[in-house]
């Protein structure tokens, strides 16, 4: 199955590059350490490097930010094809709604997903929670959507934390944030974190300064979670990349659930702005 999907990805990549529909294909290549890693293909002669397997965990949509600007003065920005899983595909919609990418410059190679695995072989937790098997946006769909059992309650682990009294919940989170080393991997990997100057890295340090103290990290993580409310697509990359194993998805999923409950909005499900980022028109608020 994986091999036939990989073959179709390669064929499509070759076709797109040879016909000059795109300048670059962002996909996965084999990795001795982890089974798969991101790769950028510019030449149809290199498409055989593309693979597909259960270790294609990375959300490649985040790399579209590197392709927003033209590489040379006077030229148009590059056109890019990106291999996209269902969870990742919602990030494409978020970036379209936020006018970060132009639809005609992105070719979405959607892949039907059976769920991804950790390096150790066990299913990724996010995949156990996920019922999406087909990308919400694609230009070509590769693979047959598998039929899967509906996932169990997606917020069971969240309920455990929420059941704690407030002081214990605060203690839980401070204990987690204490391990943070401020490497910013969670921010760097996130397709929704693309501010030119992150408010947490400003020279004037209005909210937090450069120190490693717990209060700085507390502010950083809560601030980051709030900035992603209604925008986070729950790809869980922030949690995957964290070298200190902070359970960051608990924060993001709590906010995602609140937004869905209050506004019926699921980030990136369709190409529309989050209701938390609505536009004020002549009629006033759309809410």
């Amino acid at each position, binding site marked *: 199955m994986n091999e036939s999907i990989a073959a179709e990805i390669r064929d499509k990549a070759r076709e797109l590059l040879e016909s000059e529909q795109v300048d670059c294909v962002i996909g996965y290549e084999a990795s001795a350490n982890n089974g798969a890693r*991101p790769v950028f293909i510019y030449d149809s002669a290199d498409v055989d490097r593309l693979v597909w397997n259960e270790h294609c965990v*990375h959300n490649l949509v*985040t790399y579209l930010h590197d392709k927003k600007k033209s590489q040379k003065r006077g030229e148009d920005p590059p056109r890019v094809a990106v291999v996209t899983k269902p969870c990742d595909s919602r990030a494409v919609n978020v970036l379209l709604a936020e006018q970060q990418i132009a639809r005609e410059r992105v070719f979405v190679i959607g892949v039907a997903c059976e769920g991804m695995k950790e390096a150790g072989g066990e299913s990724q937790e996010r995949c156990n929670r996920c019922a999406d098997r087909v990308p919400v946006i694609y230009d070509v769909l590769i693979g047959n959507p598998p039929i899967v059992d509906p996932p169990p309650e997606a917020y069971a682990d969240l309920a455990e934390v929420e059941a704690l009294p407030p002081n214990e919940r605060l203690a839980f989170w401070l204990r987690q944030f204490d391990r943070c080393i401020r*490497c*910013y*991997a969670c921010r*760097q990997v996130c397709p929704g974190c693309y501010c030119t100057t992150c408010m947490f890295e400003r020279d004037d340090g209005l909210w937090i300064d*450069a*120190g490693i103290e717990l209060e700085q990290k507390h502010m950083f993580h809560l601030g980051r979670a709030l900035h992603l409310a209604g925008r986070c697509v729950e790809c869980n990359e922030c949690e995957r990349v964290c*070298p200190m194993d902070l359970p960051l998805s608990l924060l993001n999923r709590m906010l995602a659930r609140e937004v869905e409950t209050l506004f019926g909005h699921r980030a990136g499900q369709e190409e529309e702005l989050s209701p938390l980022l609505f536009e004020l028109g002549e009629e006033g608020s759309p809410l």
Partner: protein
Amino acid sequence: MKFTTLDQLKVWLDGLTDKYDLVAPRDVDGKVLYRAIGSADEILFDYERPDLSAKDFFLPATEVLLRVEQQGSQVTQEEVLLDRKQVIFGLRPCDAHGAAAIDALFLHQDPADAYYRHHRERTTLVGLACPQMWGGCFCTSVGGAPDDTTHLDVLLHEVEGGYAVEAVTEKGTLLVESLASEEREIELPEPVSDADEVPVTSPEKWKPLFEEKIWMRHGERCLSCRICTYVCPTCRCFDVVDRATGIRDGVTHIERIRVWDACTSPNYRRAAGGHNSRPTKPVRLRNRFYCKFCYYPEDFGPLGCVGCGRCVVSCPVDIDIREIMQDVAKAK
């Protein structure tokens, strides 16, 4: 050679806490980290490679250099130098090599870095030999070994029934005087060193490769986060910033702090006016490797890599320093 049991070792370590700040590997919610220790019972004695190096205890992630207080027209400044002695116990040999690599710049240049020197001179390093090389490790390729004593004051080896104690320096000999032990003939265990050798190439080999495609190929998938530099025992770049810490009783408090910085970070090379001479991920990543194998050895002597393998196992997008070293060795 001195032989001591685990119980004797714990009694000794507990005794040390009277005079020293004791730092040792601890289980912190599943991560193994060098942390300040109150009692020997908190220490992990059976662990692999701690997830972070021990550099935080010489070059803290945040260190207050100066405190300034202002009240009306009165301004007072106070330099902050903590007078603490510390023992780092359970240090892996690669982390001692890492400290020595930083010494080359912060200690052995004139003038030395006063803050760094302060921490280093007050620190005694008690190592615990690795019984084997762990995933990603390649210390034997860059001049180290799982049981290397170089740059340590004492090295312990786990042996049948306890530990063999190898005092390396005079400082170490003095420190272990209070450790209950007996003299025994001990054949030290040979660590399992089965990691593939990685080729180390000279700065001369690196120089003509500056514009090679290697950097684009590996650098494009880089996230420009700081994991590799922060877990690294030799990365030592820092930033100095001033911060206001509040107004209390009419007195304004300001601190000047030194914080870790990372050449992989997008802002690292940003200059006044906004120009950034390393504007893309590949050129930033390239700098990290040139620093380790070209600039640093040329300018200060040691390699900027001790083969601890932390960056290998913690990079979210599989940028593998061993692969880079091989690519450079293979390049024509």
